């Protein structure tokens, strides 16, 4: 699995396809967050901004191999494992970028009413919840479910927006908890756990569907 993750990360990083989603994320954070703002609200905005970025990144990782190259990898490493590695790579790098953003936002924000460690923990949990929810959206609007690029991109944008506003979405709950917090807040453990579950179920369905649909 490590070898497959290195392979997909190599594809992702060397192709420079990571650049556009990263710039989008940087722009969202730069527009939404001001140094000196209350830290929890800023962390909520930064986490929300990561959601479409993670969806995009997962879509990139699922589609960056040509069909023949994908067949070679599938034979060498196992079809489902290769697909899972692409999903993990696509979701993993945004989590890393999000963690860096959480550190930066916590370092520059107004910590009044919350401690630094508590803000960090809440921010990391919300960021992970958003990245995994976004990753699930990305997986559901890419192969093997949606193959046409137009529908895929439209679904990615709409889906990302929907999971940020729909009640019941782990990302919405995590972001809302931070944005609405005045002073201290409880770390969004439940939202993060729900997002992990959602991502795991989506990954399992995506890996299984790959066998049937393509």
């Amino acid at each position: 699995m490590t070898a497959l993750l290195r392979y997909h990360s190599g594809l992702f990083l060397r192709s420079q396809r990571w650049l556009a989603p990263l710039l989008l994320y940087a722009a969202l954070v730069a527009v939404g967050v001001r140094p000196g703002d209350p830290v929890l609200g800023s962390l909520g905005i930064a986490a929300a901004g990561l959601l479409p970025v993670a969806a995009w990144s997962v879509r990139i990782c699922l589609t960056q191999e040509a069909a023949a190259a994908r067949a070679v990898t599938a034979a060498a490493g196992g079809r489902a494992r290769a697909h899972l590695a692409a999903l993990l790579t696509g979701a993993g790098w945004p989590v890393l970028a999000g963690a860096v953003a959480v550190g930066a936002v916590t370092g520059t924000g107004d910590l009044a009413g919350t401690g630094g460690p508590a803000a960090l923990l809440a921010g990391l949990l919300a960021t992970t919840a958003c990245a995994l929810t976004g990753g699930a959206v990305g997986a559901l609007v890419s192969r093997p479910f949606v193959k046409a690029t137009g529908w895929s991109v439209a679904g990615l944008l709409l889906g990302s927006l929907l999971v940020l506003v729909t009640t019941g979405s782990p990302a919405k709950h995590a972001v809302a908890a931070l944005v609405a917090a005045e002073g201290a807040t409880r770390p969004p453990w439940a939202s993060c756990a729900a997002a992990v579950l959602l991502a795991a179920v989506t990954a399992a369905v995506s890996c299984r569907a790959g066998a049937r649909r393509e």
Partner: protein
Amino acid sequence: MSTIVGAREPVRLAGVGRRYGPRGPWVLRGVDAELPAGRLVRVAGANGTGKSTLLRLVAGVDAPAEGRITGRPARTAYVPERFPPALPFTARDYLVHLGRVQGLRTGPARARAGEWLARFGAEAYAGTPLTALSKGTAQKVAVAQALLADPELLVLDEAWTGLDPEARAELDAAVRERVAAGATALFVDHDPHRLAGEPDTTLTVGAGRVLADAPPPVPALLRSAAPVRAPSPVRIVASGDRPLPDPLPGGAAGAPLAADGAVLFHVAAAHSDDLLRALLAAAWHVHRVEPLRAGADGGRP
């Protein structure tokens, strides 16, 4: 035919069918086949009958829509029909990545990548980005990734297409070596003379079915000489530079023939297959195989 690696389960296809999408037409259906270790299998059939689909199923690239495929070994390698090198790696980096995916550590993967590129005469392109390779060199990379990690199941979909004659011969030799070492090799090639006389089994695909699982024919090399399965001992004339295993199968000993560096082996018929396999695995060239009868022993005919 006995196999050197007898412990491995054969790859078994039981009632395998494949269609694209849940309501698509069946491309293949009701395929039953057994692909044992140490077996070279040609897949024959007209264009568009499902040869590539059968290969993709066996390689594990596609999953069967019905039926089961069992016994696929961990080290499986596949060479696709066309390998588009639209990946942001150099040839060597790609091979190292694929070597690692197939279970090699980074160091050995790098060394093997160099060896296999050299074998196919593409060592000069090791540092070239895949996107800058010619079609033939890209195909050499595709073939090299499949042979890199000593696959136990090797699936070649017209892998020879686009290779130069030297590389084709090298791929022929590499496939023979893998089969001799106990791997299962499954191939499609438009050239009916590809590895002619050597396939142990031919699967003929037609009308969405695998029509015939032909019984293993006696390889032409042996058939032309004499019935080697007769109880009489066999003499084999071969030449090569690489060291041979010691002791040889059946305790055979080689006696040099003065003329051209060839070596004469006498071996019991029961061990002749194993000796041939050992010779081919060491990249020796086999000149002749013939039964050893009274009177046929003196001098070179």
